[in-house]
């Protein structure tokens, strides 16, 4: 009984926190001579009020969901994996490689499957390197994964400027467009089946973490690695596995971005998606199911932010301010929840 009133109180507090942020931004809009009610209405109607807008929110959220789930898995094992960005990039790179050089003459489904494997492999190699540095050399994985994001960006650039460059692009750095048969099938206006993958990954991860022995071991290690070691757990092995799975999921996010959204690789493909996904995971306190919702919130803000800018005439930093306020609101509210677990 006490819990119920508590949860209602918490929910109301979240609403309050968000409302305060929305009002603060509204006041800011007013100081800029913009009618906030009109703008908010426009943002919502043009994003959620038509099939294209809804589709785009889903498209934008899919990679965030996958990276958020990936971040959550490593977090449960006590690892802070900030490398979703780089793992996604390497996954996208390998998937594009396969699409451009290997899968061209294959039947579509086989090619897509191969791209998927390549994407997962790329992400896993990238996170695996950070994992090795952690378990073998004791290097801090937060730092190594961040640094490897930059290296991944440079590696992608190297190939996009080099052998992956589209010969018809007049030296513009981008890969050739992948064949139509290698594109993921569309299920809704502009939305590929990638979203199913993302949601499925989130649900499976949630189930495994919660119900299975593996999940239990992971959580014990995340709770107290030292104690887990004394209890006979092979901490290094399990942490390594968590990193590999985490990277593979981010790598698949990169593959989906290529095969489902962009159709070609550029140096700017998926830039910042890793960080948004990371944010989504931490906003959801590393719960894979809640991460779906936080990812959609971020995706919505990204897509609606375009409308905000187009309608209000404010500079693009306006969108960032709103996003920061809303995220702060959620984080602020989220605090205090992680009392005991």
């Amino acid at each position, binding site marked *: 009984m006490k819990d119920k009133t508590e949860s209602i109180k918490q929910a109301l507090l979240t609403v309050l926190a968000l409302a305060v942020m929305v009002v603060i931004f509204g006041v800011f809009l007013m100081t800029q001579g913009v009618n906030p009610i009109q703008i908010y209405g426009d943002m919502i109607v043009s994003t959620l009020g038509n099939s294209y807008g809804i589709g785009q929110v889903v498209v934008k959220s899919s990679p965030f969901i996958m990276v958020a789930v990936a971040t959550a898995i490593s977090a449960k094992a006590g690892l802070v994996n900030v490398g979703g960005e780089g793992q996604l990039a390497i996954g996208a790179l390998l998937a594009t490689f396969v699409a451009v050089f290997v899968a061209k003459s294959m039947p579509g489904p086989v090619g897509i499957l191969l791209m998927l494997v390549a994407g997962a492999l790329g992400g896993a190699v990238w996170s695996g390197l950070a994992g090795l540095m952690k378990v073998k050399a004791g290097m801090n994985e937060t730092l190594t994964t961040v640094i490897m994001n930059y290296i991944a960006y440079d590696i992608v650039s190297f190939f996009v400027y080099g052998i992956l460059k589209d010969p018809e692009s007049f030296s513009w750095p981008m890969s050739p467009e992948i064949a139509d048969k290698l594109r993921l099938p569309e299920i809704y206006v502009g939305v590929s089946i990638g979203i199913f993958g993302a949601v499925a990954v989130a649900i499976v991860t949630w189930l495994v973490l919660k119900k299975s022995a593996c999940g239990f071991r992971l959580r014990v290690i995340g709770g107290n690695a030292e104690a887990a070691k004394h209890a006979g757990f092979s901490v290094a092995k399990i942490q390594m596995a968590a990193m590999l799975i985490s990277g593979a999921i981010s790598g698949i996010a990169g593959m989906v971005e290529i095969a489902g959204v962009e159709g070609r690789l550029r140096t700017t493909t998926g830039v910042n998606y890793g960080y948004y996904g990371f944010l989504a995971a931490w906003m959801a306190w590393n719960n894979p199911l809640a991460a779906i919702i936080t990812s959609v919130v971020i995706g919505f803000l990204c897509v609606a932010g375009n409308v905000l800018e*187009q309608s209000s005439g404010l500079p693009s930093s306006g969108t960032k301010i709103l996003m920061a306020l809303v995220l702060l609101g959620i984080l602020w509210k989220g605090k205090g929840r992680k009392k005991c677990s």
Partner: protein
Amino acid sequence: MKKKIWKKLMSVVLCGAMVFSMAGCGNTGGTNSSSEADSSAKTSSEKTDSKKTTVGFIFVGAKDDYGYNQAAYNASVAVEKHFGDQIQVLRQENVPETEEASRALEQMIQKGATVLFPTSYGHLEPAMDVAKKYPDVTFFHQGGLKTMDNLGTYFGTIWQSFYLCGIAAGANTKSNKLGFVASFPIPQVLANINAFELGAKSVNPDATTSVIFTGSWSDPALQTSSANTLIDKGIDVIAQHQDSTKTIVELCEQKGVYCVGDHADASELAPNTWLTGAVWHWDDLFIDMVQTAIDGKFDGSKYDGKYRGGLKEGVVDIAPFGKSVSEDTQKKIEEEKDKMINDDYNPFSDEIKDQKGNIVCKKGQTLTIDEIESMDYLVDGVIGSTK
């Protein structure tokens, strides 16, 4: 554990409810475009029936970058002023050259836009994707080399301006070493570097131009390190092809190195070291293009395809001279400019060799605009590689 998740879910659902309730407010507040936004399938031709034409602009960088985006942004303001109540203008800055650009364009169409200006080179492919879906929307792409039925590209022969800037640089250098901070090794950029070197060599045969490609339109950190590298090599004039010119121009002023601007006049940032710069005058062109589209005369017009304007058409020009440019040099530059405007003089003529000594332009030959826009080489005297 279970309760916690419910708590979280509940809170998010409630947030959603709140957000939706605001949507209600928005409707009663009433925006002219939102009522139309519900049917994405509705073609734009229905919307042009209403008096107002909606014109959308997307920019890859910030609208106040003392450069490429500012030049295009200012022209979008000129369009708005010129047409007044006749049109509604939508703008979005910092739009990346990915599917994000398709999204921004498509969202503008949802808001009723029938004329769109994707203004960056890399916006072309995303814009073509959208153009395929909306054959009734007219697209004017800035700088592209591919066109479609409803997508024309416009640009200016800004290498003419760079040739003139090269004269100023060649006359002012003491070390005979010029520097160029470039973005991507695409033909338009190479043409500017080559024209700059040819201009410098026309008054100073010993002048060489060292080029660094940053692989970015506007990365202040890379701009700074590239310019510093050039300065450390003893280079005393730095030109650039970047979207945002502020960082390098200010750095030049600090280090006492002459600078040549690009896209927009940034002389106020470097009162002591400013020589001149290549600038765009998009205003009249943009207004004319929008007028053509409003009149429904795009098909078959000069903008339906590749339109290129130059000094003659007033699309490109050079910025005001800085105080270090001598009167003689100014006179020489004005003469050359006159020749280009009145005699169709093209600096890419007569014998020109590339870096390896291959002849890329024979004696008596003049390169066509198409040849210039497909350049993949750097001319003799330029130090650096396109790879």
